[in-house]
């Protein structure tokens, strides 16, 4: 349920509606928009008695949100949510690129990749300090030491950092160091972790589970939002299919579908989707062309020696080429959208 307020509703009117919602035993989520404020309502088991809200001053309309995802729904908020992290912003119309190695291996390696990707135009740094690995015997990441290395790379480059939190035990420590917390594909339905992320003051990068539907993906984001954290960036990273030439199959259609269903920014991870270096550039181009707000790409100075996912990491020169190509596509789309807008055909 969504209460849409008048364009010139006063703050006290908004407060009064929120209080009434609380009195009814429900949760109010005020969502400020460019034109007007809307108030999302969650927590209802049955139909809400809208009569108690409809006549209140400042209320323009009450909309029933039919889909099971509520706060993430575009019906709740028509404008794009823009998630700003340092100099990077997602959802503002440009292409924002997060780059770095799969795992932080050592300081020298990480710094060298960080400086290179910055030079090519990356807006944020990625890196795994806690790695969720299929085998208990595989390299599990450097832990806090890895986060410290990333923090030093932030100091040197001025770029914000994102790293994965794999469980509630280590969440606090990841939260302390990073500018954005990643929830990985394997944890997309780890509901206690999602709730913890929902209580964090830091934005969340939520990856799609390898076999989850778009609805399940948005419901996972809903878990985070229902706890009060509205700064979420969704990431399509390929789903499991029978095709065995690539590690996963990039679900390119999920990008326009998500952009239609939700106001949250959507980025694409061509590295995990393909698992193959030679496909990262074409999939990156396709993602941006399909409307993605950004990319997260694995880059390594020496992919052959990487401790994890070397086969899907771009070399630094390849990343540089990718960034140039992406720049051209982003520009073309902007110009095209501008023209369509002028012509009134949008």
């Amino acid at each position: 349920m969504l209460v849409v307020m008048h364009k010139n509703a006063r703050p006290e009117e908004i407060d009064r509606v929120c209080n009434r919602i609380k009195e009814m035993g429900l949760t109010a989520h005020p969502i400020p928009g460019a034109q007007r404020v809307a108030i999302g309502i969650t927590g209802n088991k049955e139909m809400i008695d809208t009569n108690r809200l409809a006549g209140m001053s400042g209320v323009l309309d009450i909309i029933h949100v039919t889909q099971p995802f509520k706060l993430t729904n575009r019906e709740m908020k028509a404008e794009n949510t823009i998630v700003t992290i340092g100099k990077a912003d997602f959802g503002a119309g440009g292409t924002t690129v997060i780059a770095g190695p799969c795992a932080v291996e050592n300081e020298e390696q990480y710094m060298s990749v960080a400086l290179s990707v910055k030079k090519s135009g990356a807006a944020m740094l990625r890196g795994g300090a806690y790695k969720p690995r299929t085998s208990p015997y595989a390299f599990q990441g450097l832990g806090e030491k890895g986060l410290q290395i990333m923090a030093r790379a932030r100091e040197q480059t001025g770029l914000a950092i994102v790293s994965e939190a794999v469980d509630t035990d280590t969440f606090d420590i990841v939260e302390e160091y990073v500018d954005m917390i990643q929830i990985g594909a394997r944890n997309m339905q780890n509901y206690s972790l999602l709730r913890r992320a929902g209580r964090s003051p830091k934005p969340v990068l939520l990856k799609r589970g390898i076999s989850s539907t778009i609805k399940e993906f948005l419901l996972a984001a809903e878990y985070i939002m229902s706890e009060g954290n509205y700064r979420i960036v969704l990431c399509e990273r390929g789903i499991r299919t029978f095709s065995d030439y690539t590690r996963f199959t990039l679900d390119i259609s999920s990008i326009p579908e998500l952009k239609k269903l939700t106001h949250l920014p959507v980025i694409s991870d061509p590295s995990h989707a393909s698992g193959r270096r030679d496909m990262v550039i074409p999939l990156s181009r396709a993602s941006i062309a399909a409307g993605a707000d950004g990319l997260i790409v694995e880059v390594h100075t020496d992919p052959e020696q990487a401790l994890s996912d070397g086969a899907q990491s771009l070399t630094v020169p390849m990343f540089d080429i990718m960034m140039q190509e992406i720049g051209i596509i982003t520009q073309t789309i902007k110009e095209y959208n501008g023209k369509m807008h002028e012509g009134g055909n949008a």
Partner: protein
Amino acid sequence: MIITMSVNAERKDIQNVKSKIEQLGYATKLFQGEKKTVIHVIGVTEREKLIKAVESMPGVENLVPILRPFKMASREFHPENTVISVNGKKIGNEDIIVIAGPCAVESEENYLEISDLVKSAGAKFLRGGAFKPRSSPYSFQGLGEKGLEIMARARERTGLSIVTEVVSEVDVPLVYKYADVFQIGARNMQNFQLLKTVGRFDKPVMLKRGMSATIEEWLMSAEYILAEGNPNVLLCERGIRTYERYTRNTLDISAVPVVDDLSHLPVIVDPSHASGDSKYVRSLAKAAIAAGADGLMIEVHTDPSRALSDGKQSLQPDAFMTLMDELRRVAQAIGRRL
């Protein structure tokens, strides 16, 4: 890696080999046979280095590397079937076990009624969700500890053992107090912290297959539990996600013989979640037993249309009773008991 010591290896030879392996950073486990001692080396990452260091040491007879990525879960590591004992009931021998009950514990009255019925039909274990992992944050999330208390009362009354899901590592100590067997659900099959946590407790774990997990990934998840020291892992095939839409999931019946070949761990089947439709539960349950499963987990509800979750796939008590009779005959035909 499995290292077999020769018949006349002395105690100090065994100790030396053990120390050498530990120096290389691996854990060991000793198995004292009638004549020979076998040393299991866990978590080998540099096989060649280990072989070189150990092969010519006094007392070493031979070294068998386990080539599969799952070690302790593999048949090579443990050729005989693992038989798990829960309150005197065995899982993994010729007996076939049935775990039955509602999807979620809803109320005491309703739960006790179902428990009595499934007991009279011959089930040995009760299922029931107290902590429910639901796709939507607004769906019924289970009764929590109150649900566990109700299950414990049903155990007292019926003598059946209880299997219930734990969805977060922070809840493990609480669920441990009540459950006889922990369930790790499909969505948490790769929640590694949860796997490690239940691996440190001394109650058996039923590990459901993730809905898009390969058999290898499933066994690797079992390995996480085994590597922490809990040897009692029971696997549960519950259908995988495919493009087919007439059933909720697609039961991967071949997983049963494949797991039996690759691993010593017992494997059971959940035909309720696999099909998502009570109409098909009967056929899938019979097929699972015929394929060699060690048991079944079946959802039963006295009033499926009013169930708070998964009503559509729950059997009514009389249908469950009939099914149990049929299953007994299938079990008999393949030389097993139910």
